[in-house]
């Protein structure tokens, strides 16, 4: 059975390597990627149903290090089983969806391999019983995020977003590395259980735990490290779903959960976490309301939701354990992946990821409409969807924490949670109203998703022009940077997110579809691909409805207090009603009531990017100073040496005019005399 645990990591890792190094053809890459995802899901399911309850599963032997040990073990318990299964399942839906989404992309094999590697990193982190392995999985995810966000490396915006994401998270990783090392050295071992059971020395412990909080703040997007995530929307939609739903962004809360017994006894570290999480959750939810781009809206909502998970870990009483936080992780994984995949589908139909052009398109298909509806409702926390249960469990846990004497940190979290519930309901309602109420596009056959897709299949030539790095809009207009360009662009230019509100929905004119060779005889490729997409969305929608059942296996993950539930339902209903009124029953965008400067500032992330850029410039200025010092100060000594030697040589040359002077003869004679005298007298 221990092999199952190892294979859960090994299968996607090998699939990633194979896809990267071997698979050149698309069918092979598809088979490897989807096959490995299916296998991983099955293995993870076995692991979840029958967890081994051990933390001593060898990977490849302990490192021989002498004083400090690093056993590199894996673990398998209920928590790792559940999270591992959810990760594997979400990755499977994403892999299936990607086959459709990137059907015209020549770089599909690389992308699918990247997703597999990413999954391997996350699953390693989930099953790691060793802080080094945790760090390994953590860093692998960071690297894969760089690779995948920058997938469309022809676009400067994608390159920049990838660089930004990697650098911001890597800078936070400074604290992560130091924190993990501190915790390990306390126990003289990187083994998780040794670290958890090591008594004493609270000063170092607090330092280590606070460092880890700042470390996870990077990938989890806590303020002030949050701004990479909205920009990461430059990546293709599947990778956005992957990063947000179950892997990188959620990984931080899992790491904290694994170390929970240390945090539970450490007030300082939990207060830091609570404050960061509370600020982030309200701030991001407020910004989400004003976004004009669906993907950026979802990105801000992720920041907010991840902060909710972390706040549960910061505020819940020690007796509650990690259930509330991990429960929300699972629920969020389903509905956020659903929203992203549905959003990507919408973006393909509308030709843009901006909200305005998408208006009305959500009615294009039954699965799409219901999927998005369920996704937004679950995000807002409407009962009986999974989001309601997990979010209210968090609220309940925070209230219990406050009652338990946690004081400041619990109250901060409680206030922030209620504010977030209100804001989340508001932005979900606003987004839904925009998506559902636009003018119905004339071209739409409106009899099911498959029809839409057949009409919408783009010409193969698109790929080539895209790969050549040329703007591929028909009229040759330069495409504005801002959001990801969905694979099926149909109309001129992509609106800049900041200008989107003024832009009327672009008229759609589709390219004629290309007849694709039949695949496996009786199904056309297009139909199969569309089916994969629809099935992925449907599976995630089912997860968002039924996810609560999965959580019954995790103790403490569902624990709804009736009072807080009533309050939050009232808040949700009130916010939804208010937005509905402001939006004039969906006749206009509710965010239009915001003053234009406020709106523009919110879309631009309130200048966080400018601050990051200023930091970057400061580092570069320091680097220039270093180069100056290196070339003109440190290197002055060898140059001075060379110059001095040359000067001495010249001086010597000048004094020796190659004419034996009288003085020289005298000196030589004197030396001879002295030598003779010396020899004779010595004897």
């Amino acid at each position, binding site marked *: 059975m221990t092999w199952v645990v190892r294979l859960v990591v090994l299968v996607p890792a090998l699939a990633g390597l194979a896809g990267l190094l071997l698979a050149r053809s698309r069918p092979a890459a598809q088979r490897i990627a989807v096959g490995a995802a299916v296998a991983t899901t099955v293995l993870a399911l076995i692991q979840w149903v029958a967890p081994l309850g051990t933390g001593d599963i060898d990977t490849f032997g302990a490192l021989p290090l002498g004083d*400090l040990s690093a056993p590199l073990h894996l673990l398998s318990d209920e928590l790792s089983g559940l999270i591992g299964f959810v990760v594997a399942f979400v990755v499977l839906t994403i892999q299936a969806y990607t086959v459709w989404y990137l059907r015209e992309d020549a770089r599909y094999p690389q992308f699918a391999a990247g997703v597999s590697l990413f999954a391997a990193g996350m699953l390693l982190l989930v099953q790691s019983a060793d802080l080094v392995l945790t760090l390994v999985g953590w860093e692998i995810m960071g690297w894969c995020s760089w690779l995948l966000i920058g997938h469309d*490396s022809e676009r400067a915006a994608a390159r920049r977003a990838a660089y930004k994401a990697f650098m911001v998270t890597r800078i936070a990783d400074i604290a992560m590395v130091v924190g993990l090392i501190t915790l390990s050295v306390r126990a003289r071992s990187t083994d998780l259980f040794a670290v958890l059971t090591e008594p004493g020395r609270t000063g170092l412990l607090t330092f280590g735990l606070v460092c880890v909080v700042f470390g996870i703040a990077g990938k989890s997007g806590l303020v002030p490290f949050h701004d990479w995530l909205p920009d990461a929307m430059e990546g293709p939609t599947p990778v956005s779903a992957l990063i947000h739903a179950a892997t990188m962004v959620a990984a931080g809360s899992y790491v904290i959960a694994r170390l929970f017994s240390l945090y539970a006894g450490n007030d300082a570290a939990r207060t830091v976490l609570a404050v960061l999480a509370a600020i982030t959750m309200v701030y991001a939810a407020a910004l989400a309301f004003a976004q004009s781009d669906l993907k950026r809206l979802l990105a801000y909502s992720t920041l907010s939701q991840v902060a909710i998970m972390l706040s549960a870990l910061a505020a819940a009483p020690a007796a509650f354990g990690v259930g509330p936080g991990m429960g929300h992780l699972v629920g969020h994984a389903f509905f956020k992946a659903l929203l992203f995949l549905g959003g990507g589908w919408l973006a393909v139909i509308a030709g843009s990821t901006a909200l305005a052009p998408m208006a009305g398109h959500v009615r294009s298909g039954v699965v799409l409409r219901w999927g998005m509806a369920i996704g937004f409702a679950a995000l807002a926390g409407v009962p009986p969807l999974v989001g309601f249960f997990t979010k209210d469990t968090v609220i309940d846990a925070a209230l219990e924490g406050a009652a338990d004497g946690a004081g400041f940190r619990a109250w901060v979290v409680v206030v922030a949670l209620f504010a977030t519930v209100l804001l989340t309901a508001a932005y979900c309602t606003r987004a839904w109203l925009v998506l559902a109420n636009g003018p119905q596009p004339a071209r739409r056959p409106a009899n099911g998703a498959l029809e839409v897709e057949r009409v919408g299949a783009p010409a193969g030539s698109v790929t080539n022009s895209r790969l050549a790095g040329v703007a591929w809009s028909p009229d040759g207009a330069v495409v504005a940077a801002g959001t990801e360009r969905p694979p099926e662009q149909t109309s001129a230019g992509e609106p800049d997110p900041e200008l989107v509100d003024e832009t009327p929905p672009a008229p759609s004119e589709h390219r004629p579809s290309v007849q694709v060779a039949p695949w496996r005889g009786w199904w056309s490729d297009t139909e199969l691909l569309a089916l994969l997409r629809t099935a992925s969305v449907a599976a995630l929608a089912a997860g968002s409805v039924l996810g609560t059942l999965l959580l019954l296996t995790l103790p403490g993950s569902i624990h709804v207090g009736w009072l807080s539930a009533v309050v939050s339902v009232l808040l949700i209903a009130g916010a939804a009603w208010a937005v509905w009124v402001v939006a004039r029953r969906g006749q206009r965008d509710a965010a239009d009531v915001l003053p234009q400067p406020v709106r523009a500032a919110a879309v631009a992330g309130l200048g966080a990017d400018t601050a990051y850029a200023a930091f970057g410039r400061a*580092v570069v200025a320091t680097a220039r100073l270093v180069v100056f010092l290196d070339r003109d100060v440190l290197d002055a000594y060898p140059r001075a040496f060379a110059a001095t030697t040359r000067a001495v040589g010249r001086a010597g040359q000048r004094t020796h005019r190659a004419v034996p002077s009288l003085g020289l003869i005298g000196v030589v004679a004197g030396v001879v005399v002295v030598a003779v005298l010396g020899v004779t007298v010595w004897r």
Partner: protein
Amino acid sequence: MAVTILVLVPLVAAILLLAMPPVSGADRAVALVASVATAGLAVVVSALRLEVDVMWIRALGIRWHLAPDGISIALILLTVLLTVGIVLHTLHGPPPEGGTRSTLLGCVLLVEAGALGTFLARDALLFFVAFEVVLVPMWVLIRRFGDHHRTDAVRADAAGRFIFFTVLGSTLMLVGILFLVYHQGSSDLGVLAAAHGSGMPHGVQLAVAALLLAGLGIKVPIWPLHTWLPAAHTIAPTAGSVLLAAVLLKMGTYGIVRLAVATVPDGVATLSPVLAVLGVVGIVWGGLACLVERDLKRLVAYSSVAHMGFVVLALASGSHTGLQAALFGNIAHGVVASLLFFVVGDLKEQWGSADLAVARVALRDTAPRFGLPLVFGFAAALGLPGLVSFWGEFLALYAAWFPAPGRPVALLRVCVVLGAVGLAIAAGYAVRVIRIVWAGEGSDPAASPVRDLRGARRAVVVALVGATVVLGVGPQLLLHLSNADAAGLLEAVRR
């Protein structure tokens, strides 16, 4: 006997190659056979731990004592395998400028002979002799075969700088060795290590350690003695750059472990705060320089300074973990830097320069066989887990957080934090390079594309990528190799 032959094969082949008339085509066969035979012999010698121990200079008591052990085997294998790679690479490229191919190959094999002698020597003076053998051929490689797009004065400067620094280092080291041998009455490294500095007053130990560390630190190079390295790397041909990075720098760290840490532990312990600070300054300094450096080869050279900083930091910790980390980081840097120099050197060969500011075609789609190894190389350079460098760097920080008793804990912990900052800086420069060269930031799609890697050159690069991954996934392979001898070396220190 086999050990002697191991050193003699490349030496004799080098002499043959250097003496060969320029028109003969036999250089290919000689170089290939010699390098492959050396590699085979080295594997045998390492596997069976063969040794040779005969009196060499009776009057001085210097023995011809060559033997591999856990600390040197990895370096020996790295040297011989990379030499095969360099020979293949040279034979499958355009004829070198500045001299004949046989001269170039002769110099490469001469460096190999010297390096093998250095790694195998068990006598301090034999070590010194072998250490010096590499200087002249390396100088020839830089001076004669250096970048011919640059003026002669630039090549002369780089080569002269190399000689000036390394000879200065050798001189300091020689004085240190003589001091040590005079005090201990033996030049046998085994005897010296077993004595672990006993019988030497602390002041003398300190002086010897300072001389040895300064001398060998130039070779490593430890900041601020590094300014010869970027110039030498930029000008040297690919063969020279790879040898410099993978062999010559390693001789420095190896020498520190073998000569200084083992024989004058107290002196080194006293100097360890200095070492740690210099190491960490090197990490940050080299990394920052890489952030704005325009010349790609120079950039890789500065990244070498940063990586060797981690090795120095690990040595400063003085613990068993630290020694393991340093030995591992040494090999890791050898593999990664040679991979990068092979790829970057080939790119420079086609581009005509290695200036990052020149708009070129992005490698990602036009030359994936260049692109992928480049991405692997820089991913390794930034310490990505799963690739070889991660373990050296992480373990260095881990060890430095918990140094051997008596070392300044607080100072070393500050150094660890700064070292972790260095990891972030490494990410910055590595991704910067990939973004420009591979993803095409500021690229010019109309520029002429590079010919993709093919044949033997590709095989060499692929083998190095494989080594990066294999050692990154299984660091135990190397750590087990050095574990017992590292422990033995420190047992002496502990007593």
